[in-house]
């Protein structure tokens, strides 16, 4: 398993992945520096900054980037018979699928951590003097990561299924855009998987739980859609003829 992970990372690292990893945090940086959200309530200024950055980042960028990453990790397998060469090696398809998934999740985690760095840099530049709310920022960063589990699983499935770059991307956009509406809806918001990164990263949720989202919502919506999408992709890949 370790050798498959190493091989996957080796192939991915030689594509333009590094550039993409830095796009997210840079967008965050840009959003943070250009926003001038101010309210007259005594609130930790870090929250304010995070709030303005999170909106675009968690609502649009994070879900969309999962799709792009998944496409890249499958693209070179589709291009020139990569699948048939890879799967004729002594590997099981299950392990290949898991390896690709694990690599994707680690990259999303790296992006989240860089985003955390961007939040900090914005604060420094703006000269925020309030204490850095470490716990809550972690909740938001780590929670946002957990919320991408099902999204990455679905996008990996779609990227294995479709040879083209555009098809899985379209699927992703179609599901991601409605989350702008969903987060404003009390009724649908909590149940829409693509809205979860935003909900999980949204400061001001219930801070007594581990994350900003109640446990039962996390388990049913994020956990449930993860199981569905992961198994769907896993089983599809087992049967795929190459």
């Amino acid at each position: 398993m370790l050798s498959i992970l190493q091989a996957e990372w080796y192939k991915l690292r030689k594509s333009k992945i590094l550039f993409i990893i830095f796009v997210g945090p840079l967008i965050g940086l840009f959003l943070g520096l250009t926003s001038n959200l101010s309210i007259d309530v005594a609130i930790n200024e870090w929250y304010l900054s995070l709030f303005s950055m999170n909106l675009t980042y968690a609502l649009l960028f994070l879900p969309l980037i999962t799709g792009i990453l998944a496409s890249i990790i499958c693209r070179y397998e589709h291009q020139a018979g990569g699948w048939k060469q890879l799967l004729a090696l002594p590997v099981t398809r299950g392990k290949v699928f898991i390896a690709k998934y694990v690599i994707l999740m680690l990259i999303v985690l790296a992006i989240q951590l860089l985003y955390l760095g961007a939040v900090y840099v914005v604060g420094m530049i703006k000269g925020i003097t309030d204490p850095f709310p470490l716990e809550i920022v972690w909740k938001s960063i780590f929670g946002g990561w957990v919320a991408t589990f099902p999204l990455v699983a679905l996008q990996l499935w779609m990227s294995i299924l479709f040879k083209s770059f555009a098809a899985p991307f379209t699927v992703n956009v179609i599901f991601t855009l409605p989350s702008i509406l969903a987060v404003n809806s009390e009724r649908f918001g909590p149940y829409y998987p693509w809205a979860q990164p935003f909900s999980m990263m949204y400061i001001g949720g219930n801070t007594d739980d581990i994350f900003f989202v109640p446990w039962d919502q996390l388990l049913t919506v994020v956990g449930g859609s993860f199981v569905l999408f992961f198994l769907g992709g896993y089983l599809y890949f087992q049967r795929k003829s190459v």
Partner: protein
Amino acid sequence: MEYVVKTKGLTKNFGKEKPVTGLDMKIPKGEVYGFLGPNGAGKTTTIRMLLGLMKPTTGTIHIFQKDLRKERVNILKRVGSLVENPSYYPHLTAYENLEALRKILGVPKKKIYEVLEIVRLSDVANKKVKGFSLGMKQRLGIAASLLNNPELLILDEPTNGLDPSGIIEIRQLIKRLPAEYGMTILISSHLLSEIDQMATTVGIVTNGKMIFQDSIEVMRMLSQQKISLKVNNSEQAWRSLLAKGIKADYKDDTVLLSEHSNKKIAEAVRTLVQDGFSIYRVEEEKRSLEDIFLQMTRGGKEG
């Protein structure tokens, strides 16, 4: 006999299309098995199934006497393969392509240089494969198939896209491998002349069915037809041979001998000379392997 590859009733259906039907393939150890058939005969489909890239509709596959369904990974550790068009990662160099495979195969790094040298790609090892010619990609594919010192090498049309000197190099390589490393090789082609120069065993497939499977010698025997004798009085000569118990035919003013061992021919000639016939010509009417191949694939019956 110990078979490295043995399939029983191997069948693949794609809806109505049946590219492989009831294929029984037997490859003895240490042989170069030429898998021959016209375009669309089902060679690549069979090879895909042998590698577990595609599941058979029905039938069984045993490689190294192990069931492919149960021990796929253990089997593939000992197999090297090249399927159809060369597979590669365009964004990587030749070296990096092999390194990505090597990490999974777990062989030492020096093996990469070794196989690059074998296929003469050492000079372009650090160039992106994207810019390679078809022949160079094909060589890279062959290098990849050799990376894990396989006991069974499966090559689907390996000389596709190679120039004449490349074809000769690969041919010599393929002939060398069984002797030097005890490898068994399955090589597919739609060109009989190519198989004829490398293979020791031949399997001919057409419309998904195996119509001939035996050693190349047996195949060559089929290509020897009859010995024809041109004699001053053919009909009488023929009768005279029959009277002495030598099998012969008479057609178009020539005598045709059915037996073609040297001894029998010498005996027939001696008999005729002793009986006072003048022998003008002794000829072997040879059908080329190509003719036999065409005849077999057209007829589609057991050769």
